[in-house]
C-alpha cells in the first residue's frame, strides 16, 4: 500500500513495528507464545494428570506405547501420558530457561561491567573470583548447593543461576574493558559525565547484543543442566515433570522407545531456536547503525 500523504523523509518506524516485519522473528515469537500458552493452560489442555500411571498405558509386556490416536505422544516407562507430561514440563523448563538463565545473565553482566569498568583491585578481585567459579566443577557446586537447601524448583533455578553466570561475566568484562578505552567514553568524561551515566547510558547499550546472544545460548544449557541435576536426584523432584528430566528418565530405553527422548529433545531445541531468532532480530532492530539496511 502506498501512503501518498507520506512526507519526503518518512518517520522512522517503531522498534516493535520493525521487529514484526521480520518473518523469522515472528515465527520465533509464535513458538515462544505456543510454549508459554502450553505451560499456562496445561491443566486445561492436558488429557491426563502428569503423574497418573495409566492402567492401559503400557503393553502387555510392560513396554511403553508409541504415539497413536489416544496418546498423541505415546506413553513413558511408567505408563504416563507423555503429552500431558510435556505440557506440565513446559512450566518447569520455562522457569528454568527464563528465570534462572535471566538471573545468571544479570549477575554475569553486573560482575563483568563492574570489573571491566573499574579495573584496579575491584576488577581483579571480581575476575579472580569468576575464574575460581569457572575452575570449580559446576555440577559439583550445584550438587553441594542443592544438597544444602531442600530441593525445589526455585532452589534449582537459583543454583543454576549461581553456576551459570561466569561465562557471561568473562565476556562482558572483556567487552567493557575495550569499550571503556574508546574515544567516546573519554569524550563523555571530558564533558563531566559521572560514572553512573557512562556505565548505564553509554556502555550498557553497547553490551546489549552480547547479552542477547548469551541469553539465548544459555536457554538450552540451563534447561539441560536442570535435567542433569534432576537425574542426579538434586533437581526437580519426581514425579514433577520437566523436559530435561523426561529425557534423562527415559534415555536408557532410547533404542526401544525413541519418541521418549526425541520429543522432549526437539522441544528444547525448538524453544532455544525460538529465543535465538527473536533475540537476533531484536539485536538488529535495536542497533541504530543497522537502520535502513534491512
Amino acid at each position, binding site marked *: 500500500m502506498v501512503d501518498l500523504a507520506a512526507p519526503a*523523509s518518512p518517520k*522512522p518506524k517503531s522498534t516493535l513495528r520493525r521487529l514484526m516485519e521480520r518473518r523469522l522473528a515472528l515465527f520465533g515469537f509464535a513458538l515462544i507464545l505456543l510454549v508459554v500458552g502450553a505451560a499456562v493452560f496445561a491443566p486445561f489442555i492436558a488429557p491426563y494428570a502428569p503423574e497418573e500411571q495409566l492402567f492401559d498405558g503400557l503393553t502387555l509386556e510392560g513396554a511403553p506405547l508409541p504415539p497413536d490416536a489416544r496418546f498423541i505422544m505415546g506413553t513413558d516407562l511408567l505408563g504416563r501420558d507423555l503429552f500431558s507430561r510435556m505440557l506440565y514440563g513446559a512450566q518447569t523448563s520455562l522457569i528454568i530457561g527464563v528465570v534462572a538463565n535471566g538471573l545468571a545473565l544479570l549477575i554475569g553482566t553486573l560482575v563483568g561491567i563492574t570489573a571491566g569498568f573499574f579495573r584496579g583491585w575491584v576488577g581483579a578481585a571480581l575476575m579472580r573470583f569468576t575464574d575460581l567459579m569457572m575452575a570449580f566443577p559446576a555440577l559439583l557446586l550445584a550438587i553441594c548447593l542443592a544438597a544444602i537447601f531442600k530441593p525445589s524448583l526455585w532452589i534449582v533455578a537459583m543454583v543454576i543461576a549461581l553456576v551459570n553466570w561466569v561465562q557471561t561475566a568473562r565476556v562482558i568484562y572483556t567487552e567493557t574493558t575495550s569499550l571503556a578505552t*574508546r*574515544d*567516546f567514553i*573519554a*569524550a*563523555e*568524561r*571530558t*564533558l*563531566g*559525565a*559521572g560514572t553512573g*551515566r557512562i556505565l548505564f547510558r*553509554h556502555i550498557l*547499550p*553497547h553490551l546489549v547484543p552480547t547479552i542477547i546472544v548469551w541469553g539465548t545460548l544459555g536457554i538450552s544449557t540451563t534447561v539441560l543442566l536442570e535435567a542433569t541435576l534432576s537425574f542426579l536426584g538434586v533437581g526437580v523432584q519426581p514425579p514433577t515433570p520437566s523436559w530435561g528430566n523426561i529425557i534423562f528418565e527415559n534415555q536408557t530405553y532410547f533404542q526401544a522407545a525413541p519418541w521418549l527422548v526425541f520429543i522432549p529433545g526437539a522441544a528444547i531445541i525448538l524453544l532455544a531456536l525460538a529465543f535465538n531468532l527473536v533475540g537476533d532480530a531484536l539485536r538488529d532492530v535495536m*542497533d*541504530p*547503525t543497522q*537502520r535502513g539496511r534491512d
Partner: protein
Amino acid sequence: MMPAEQTLSGATTAPDTSPVLSVEGLTVSVRTEFGLRPLVEDLSFTLNRGETLAIAGESGSGKSITSLAIMGLLPPPAVRVTAGSIRLGQTNLTTASEAQMRRIRGDRIAMIFQEPMTSLNPVLTIGTQLAEAMRAHEPISRQEARSRALAALTAVRLSQPERRLNQYPHELSGGMRQRVMIAMALALRPEVLIADEPTTALDVTVQREVLDLLRDLQRDLGTAIILITHDMGVVAEMADRVIVMKSGRMVEQAPVTTLFQAPAQPYTRDLLAAVPRMGGRTDTPAAISADAVASLSDVVVRFPIKGGLLGRTTLNVHAVEHVSFDIRRGETFALVGESGCGKSTIAKAMVGLVPHQGQITVGGHVLSPRGLDAPRSLRRRVQMVFQDPMAALDPRMRVGDLIAEPLLIHDIGTAADRRARAADLIRRVGLSPDQIDRYPHEFSGGQRQRICIARALALKPDLIIADESVSALDVSVQARVLALLQELQKEMGVAFLFISHDMAVVDSISDRVGVMYLGQIVEMGTRAQVFGDPRHPYTQRLIEAVPVPDPAHQREKTIRLAGDVPSPVHPVGSGPERLILRDVGGGHLVAM
C-alpha cells in the same frame, strides 16, 4: 652515496616506449540490493616504464578500488570489474585466473599499503617474511633467500640490516616497517609498484625519508610507480603525471607541472586551493589580550612501567617534561610535533584524563593533579574535540541527544530548552536542524566533526582543545572546518588549543605555536616567529620535511639518515636532560 644501494640496481632500462600497464574503460561495481552501483567508472590510463603516476582524490573517489582492481584483490563477491580491461604487458589481468594472478602479484606487480604494522605478520621475523615472499616466486634455497633478503634490507637503507632480519615487526618503528614493506615489494624487481598512501601514517620527517628512498630506488631500478594519495604535496614532489579522481570518475589527467600551474577543471582548482600551504598567510595577528584562559606551569606527566617480582615501578615513560605555557583569551595556541612527543598527553592532562605533576590553571581554578577528580564545574570551562569524530560520538545516540548531553550532565535548562539549544548549535556549525534525530553514522566525516564541535560549544567553554581534529578529514572538508573554527572564535571569543602534526594546517590557523620534541617544548613564539624564523634545529627539520604542493619547488639536498627518535623511557631516578628556554627577542623562546 652508500655502496649498498648498488645491490638492487644494475638493471639498465632499455628505452622502451610501450606502456607497462594500460587500463581501458575500467568499471568496478558493487552489488547492492538496488542492482550494480559503480565505484569506478570508465577509467582509462597508461603507465610507462620508469614513470610515477599519481592518482589523487579525496576519500570515496575510487582511487584505492582502482589499485585493488589492478592487483586482482577486489573483495569478492560483492565488488567486481564489470567492464573494461587492465593489461600488464600482454596479459589481461581482468580475465586472468586466480592462479595466474598469484604468480603476477609480488613478482610483476607489487603493492605497499598505508599501515605497515597491519600489513606485516606480527608473529614472523622480518627475515622469514622477506624470504617467504621471494621463495613463493623463485625456486631458490633458504640460504640464498636469506642473503637476498639481507641485500634488500640494505638497499632500503635500514640501519643494522643483519639484526633486523631476526627482529619482529613490533620491534621496529613505523618508518622502519614501511622500509621493510618497500624492501619486500621491490625484492623481486616488479615492473609496477602500487603505493597506496605509503606515507600517510608516518610522521613528516619519516615521510620525507621514505619518499626520498622511493625516488632513489625508482631511479636505480626503473620500476613504474602508481602512487595513490590524497596529499597534493606528495603528488607535487613525486609524480610525473597526475590523475585526479572524484566519485569514481577521472576528472583530469595531466603532467604534474601543468596540473599545478594551469588546472583545467574547476574541481582540480578547488582541490588545489583547499590545500593548506606553509607561509600562505599574510594577515597581521589580531591584538590578543594578555589575560590567560589557561596556564601550565612546570607540568610533568609520567607513566610508570611496573616490573620485577614485587611489581614496583622500574621505568617511567616521560611523556611530558616540565612544560609551561599560557593560552590567552580568544587566541589559538598550537602544539606541533611528531607522534609520541607528548602533545596529546598535555591535552589529556588539561581535561583531567591523566594525572599530572606541576600546576595547570584553567579559568582561575587549579586542576587537581590526580586528574579524574576534577570538579564538574571545572569541566565546563574546557572542552575537547577529538581526532576521529566517529569514535568520539556514541553510535547508539541521536545527534540531538549527543549535543544536548553536556547540558543534561550539568543540569542546565529543561528538556525543551536543551533541545532548542541543540538545534541552534546544529545550525551554528552549518548543519540543518531537521537532522537532529539522525544517528552519527548517517553523516559524513566532516559533518560528524561539526557535530563534535557543536557539542563542545554547548557549555560555552573558555577553551576548546582540538586534538588532531582535522587530520582525518579530506583537504576540502578540512579547509571548511578550519574556517568554521576561526569564525566561531571571532564570534564567541573562545580560545583554542590546537594540536596537530600538520605544519601547514598549524601555520594557517594558529596565533602562537609551541614545538614539542620528546615531551619538552623546544621552541615557542608567535606564528611569524616560529615559522618565519625557526631557530631550533628540530623546528627547522620539521618545516623542511613538509611536502610542498608545487612541483617547481627545489629542495635543498640534505643528509639522509635512517635515524630513530630516542626513547622517552628512562629508569626511575633518571630522566632526559631538562631544556632551558631562552628568549631570543619578542617572546620567541628557543631551547639552548
